[in-house]
């Protein structure tokens, strides 16, 4: 146990140590400046998604039909904004070769409180958001928060002319409450694919960024 404590102390005292070696064998032709910018923007996209998701999922108490309509309208707008973050806006889409690509899939897991068994489903992102909006589990309050995103330095891959992809990891915390008690909570590690498309508008380079499939790595 003592050794473990020493190790813990070491770990805490030396967080955020910078990398020490350079990596060869690149899978893209982007420079460090582009990489830093893209990583930052990809992280912002994921955070934006999680912010929207939290709003969409959270039940809002209303006192009149008018308020109900306003809430529904706002949630619909948020769902649309959310879908705009995804490639194909959550629908199937045509790639640059004319192939039809499947809609983005969102792996979803939940833990059975009694058996601790984890079940996984794979709805399309549109269905997932709809389910979240309808408060499928009838919780009075839902809280969704996320950790910082992690991206490996070697994660970025060039896949086509001007098209790049990478994977971001983050942890999502979900809590559903009924009355004063926590009816359900879990912590899920997720990986999300991010697409970067390089375009030139008026001679200036612009990057279009979309989210892709999201997988569940671990749920507790």
């Amino acid at each position, binding site marked *: 146990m003592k050794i473990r404590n020493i190790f813990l102390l070491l770990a805490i005292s030396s967080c955020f140590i910078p990398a020490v070696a350079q990596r060869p064998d690149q*899978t893209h032709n982007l420079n460090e400046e582009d990489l830093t910018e893209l990583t930052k923007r990809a992280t912002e996209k994921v955070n934006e998604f999680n912010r929207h998701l939290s709003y969409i999922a959270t039940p809002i108490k209303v006192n009149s039909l008018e308020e109900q309509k306003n809430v529904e309208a706002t949630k619909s707008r948020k769902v649309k904004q959310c879908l705009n973050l995804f490639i194909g806006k959550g629908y199937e889409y045509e790639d640059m070769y004319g192939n039809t690509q499947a809609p983005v899939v969102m792996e979803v897991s939940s833990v059975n409180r009694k058996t601790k068994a984890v079940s996984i489903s794979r709805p399309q992102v549109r269905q997932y958001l709809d389910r979240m909006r309808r408060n499928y589990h009838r919780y009075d309050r839902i809280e969704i928060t996320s950790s910082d995103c992690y991206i490996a330095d070697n994660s970025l*891959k060039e896949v086509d002319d001007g098209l790049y992809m990478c994977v971001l990891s983050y942890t999502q915390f979900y809590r559903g409450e009924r009355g004063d008690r926590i009816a359900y909570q879990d912590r899920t590690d997720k990986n999300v694919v991010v697409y970067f498309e390089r375009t030139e508008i008026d001679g200036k380079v612009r990057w279009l960024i979309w989210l892709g499939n999201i997988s569940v790595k671990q749920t507790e």
Partner: protein
Amino acid sequence: MRRLLLTLVSVLALSAPTHGQSLDDYNMLQYKMEVKQIAEFMERFNLSELPPNLHPDDTLLREKAYLMLFDRELIDRRQEEVRFLVQRLAAEKPRLSFTDTAWCAEAVCRAVLDGKPTRLTLVLRTEHVAGHRFKWVISDARGECLALTPKKSNPGLRINPTDNEVNFLSLHDVTKNEWQNILNYKASGTPLDGLSVFFALVQSGRLKIEYVEELAYHFWKPSYQFTVRDFRRDDFNAGWLISDFTIKKDT
């Protein structure tokens, strides 16, 4: 050697679980320690990225970095061999890269064949496309559902020695009426490979993969090879870690 052994013990000691369930109390250190992607495994193996508990000036930096990429239960079971491999790695300083040809992914898949659930294993490897571009390709397929077996076998299920003189007229009957026993007509010594069967079943619309149930990566170097799996546990020693390895005897 004693210091390395102590490090080994330290890695083994990192097994106490934590029970954070909200963003506030969740142990972010544990999240930073976890090897979250295979890309991160490679970064840590190459020492391009260090786990938060290692300092670049550590005199046993390589040894500790490698050790922390092993599943602690594997270390527990095979301490001497792990130590031998770690020392070899520290001496050879090998690098792993997505662009390497000496690694592959092994995916155990849940699938549906003719409407019935089944399971098969696909081996995928990276293939160079052009310039910096790579893609994953399917290089092997295994599974009981890919091992074709005839419904019945007997000496009568054959193409007669005279059939060549009549334009092999029996081929029509063989493929129309004896299609479930077609393997009786195959030349002996020409084994069917699972990959071809897999592609044929998929292209004919009979086989569909539902999802990947288990994933492992195999890396091989001239004198050793190892397997990396995702250890999902509430622990510092978690994520993509070396789950098995072999060292070639003549090295």
